[in-house]
């Protein structure tokens, strides 16, 4: 393996039920397969019932804290657009945001518009990409259950994550139940094609 990274810090944010822990497991396995040290942190129980959920993944030569420090995230994957505002705490001007264009309304509250969210984040953060992952998955696969996998795969094809796409695919195979692997693989390929299309 070539020169090892000192550390790479990822935050994935969304709401309970979007499969964040599976994504965390996939990244961790992929990082292990590339010889990195890993520490992650997640929450279970109450917070999983549709509340905000954020998971932390760190890998590198030697990692101590399972939590990403304030301002130290290298990559933030947002599965729900409004939730991304909360992760600003972990961002610095160089942090990369990959955001799913998807608003899940909060009962009794007016949703914040995408323009407002991005407008505010852009005051501080340069590198923000927004993808309609839910829409693409629904259209191409007929389901949105693998939206997170789509976003993660896209991050690896865009080189936003210093892990090989193939390591991610292998990790997907290891982590997701066998009967869902085909769907997940299709999602992975979909992200690959999207990225190819963008580059043309």
């Amino acid at each position: 393996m070539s020169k090892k990274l000192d550390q790479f810090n990822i935050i994935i944010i969304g709401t309970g039920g979007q499969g964040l822990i599976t994504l965390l497991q996939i990244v961790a396995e992929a990082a292990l397969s590339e010889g990195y040290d890993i520490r992650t942190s997640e929450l279970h129980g109450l917070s999983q019932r549709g509340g905000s959920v954020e998971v932390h993944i760190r890998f590198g030569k030697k990692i101590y804290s399972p939590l990403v420090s304030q301002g130290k995230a290298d990559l933030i994957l947002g599965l729900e657009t409004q939730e991304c505002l909360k992760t600003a705490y972990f961002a610095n001007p160089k942090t990369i945001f990959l955001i799913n264009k998807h608003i899940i309304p909060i009962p009794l509250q007016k949703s914040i518009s995408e323009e407002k969210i991005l407008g505010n984040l852009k005051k501080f953060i340069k590198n923000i990409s927004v993808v309609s992952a839910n829409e693409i998955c629904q259209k191409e696969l007929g389901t949105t259950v693998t939206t997170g996998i789509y976003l993660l795969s896209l991050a690896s094809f865009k080189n936003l994550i210093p892990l090989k796409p193939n390591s991610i695919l292998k990790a997907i195979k290891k982590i997701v139940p066998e009967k869902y692997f085909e769907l997940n693989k299709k999602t992975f390929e979909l992200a690959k094609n999207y990225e190819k299309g963008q580059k043309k």
Partner: protein
Amino acid sequence: MIMEILLNKPGKKIILLGNEAIVRGAMESGVQFVSTYPGTPASEIGDTFYKIKNNFYFEYSTNEKVALEAGIGASFSGLKTLVAMKSFGLNVALDALLPFLYTGTKGPTVIIVADDPSCHSSAQSEENSRSIAYLAHIPILEPADPQECKDFVKLAFQISEKFKIPVMIRTTTRVAHQRAPVKLEKIIIGDTCGKFEKDSKRFVTLPPRVLEMKKELLEKIEKIKAFSENSLINKIENQKLETPKQSKLATGQVRNWKLGIITSGVSYLYIREALQELNLDLPVLKLGFFYPLPEKKTQNFIKNLKKVLIVEELEPCLEKEVLRIAKNVNCKLQIVGKKLIPEVGELRPEIVTSTIAKFANKKYKFAICNLKFPIMKRFPQLCPGCPYWLVISAIKKAVDINKVIFGGEIGCYMLFGNPPVNLQDYLSCMGSSVGIAHGIKKSTGQKIISFVGDSSFFHAGIPALINAVFNKSNPLIIILENQTTAMTGHQPHPGAPIVPNGIKIEEIVRACGVKYVKTIDQINQVEFINTIKEFLEKPEVSVIIARRPCIFVAKK
């Protein structure tokens, strides 16, 4: 994925959750008997044992006290035993725990207790279970990460075996729910058949023997203290580097600053992170034993220091110990702890970094995003399609919610307290909604509907129900029978359909002396609404059992 934990490949590294590493540690120790009651952040311990169920006995008990009692019985019968629970479970189990320290173990016994600083998944209090050391005289080990979870469980079994005493492992959310690579060692397969040999001197805590037992316990603790002094899990790092740091004071006078840090558990990881970030080399005493503390090692560590920083979450337990120990060896030592480290809420790496920077007088600044935009709060909600929504809608139609008091309980339905539902006027511990409802009824003439889930009812609701009948009050109790322990991950309980011939709650309720009992599927809204109205007027305790499975049970 879960099956990787069963690999018998010594030397292989796999990623494990802290809780899974505890299970693996038990398997590598040859565990024979496991009991638990689920509770976040400890639940995956039981769930993992439940899934791999082989070569040992496993049960979900009705509550933590019963789980511990079962474990005590197994230990008395010579089996290697593990009992797991969350912080509040320890409170429930406490009555059984204290005498267990007096009798000691026969089969080595490890008790896992998981605290939840910041109350991510804990509704009742922010508990620091380390305090139990002083009450129970139970040795406590504190791992920082999954590898230590596994190693400390194995060590705890060894200590228990050697000193015939139960040993507690205290984790916190960021340890229990941390994933990291763990190096596997050999799995040992135990036998699940023990033998109880009569020995009343050992197992009966009757006075006057009980006081002798206490003396024996304190003697054991002294011996374990000596063991703790030599244990590698209490380690000093960077001490070689402890060259006096020079720092100029404003007066131009130069003084030697000698600094050190003492810590335990996950805080240690934040310290290593901070020292790296700040490019500092301070000596660190990392305590694997919280109790009994290696006093001599601690004395040696602090005796030449000017200032020591104690980094620990929640109450200043270590800080008080160091304060006491310092008196004899270094009475001028400045001990800094809760003055800089918050006592409420979990620590985060950036808190520790900025604290160490302050402590060591090092400038530290980095770019942070000061987003001034108001961020909305997303409260957890009942799942769409949850059977409880039907209970909520019926109640809102049956009564004026401002004129009725609503008693809350621990379970998914404590989300009744969140908007837009707002049906929760008090919330305390497991089983308490009924007990408190009785007290309010006896003190006022107000109407009360108190909720209790089926798992909570089995856990601690039954004595409270009997009390309300016996002492004659008349709350309306709605037992939410969703046929699972939903909130902690859908574990089975005695009334769940997964259990053949599961216990029928209405039979228990009737046997408790309740005359007004009705079991209704809340999908029948009209009947449900009418029954609420009718039962609220009854002069005696009344119970509605709202029987409709959680959507996750229905799916199975």
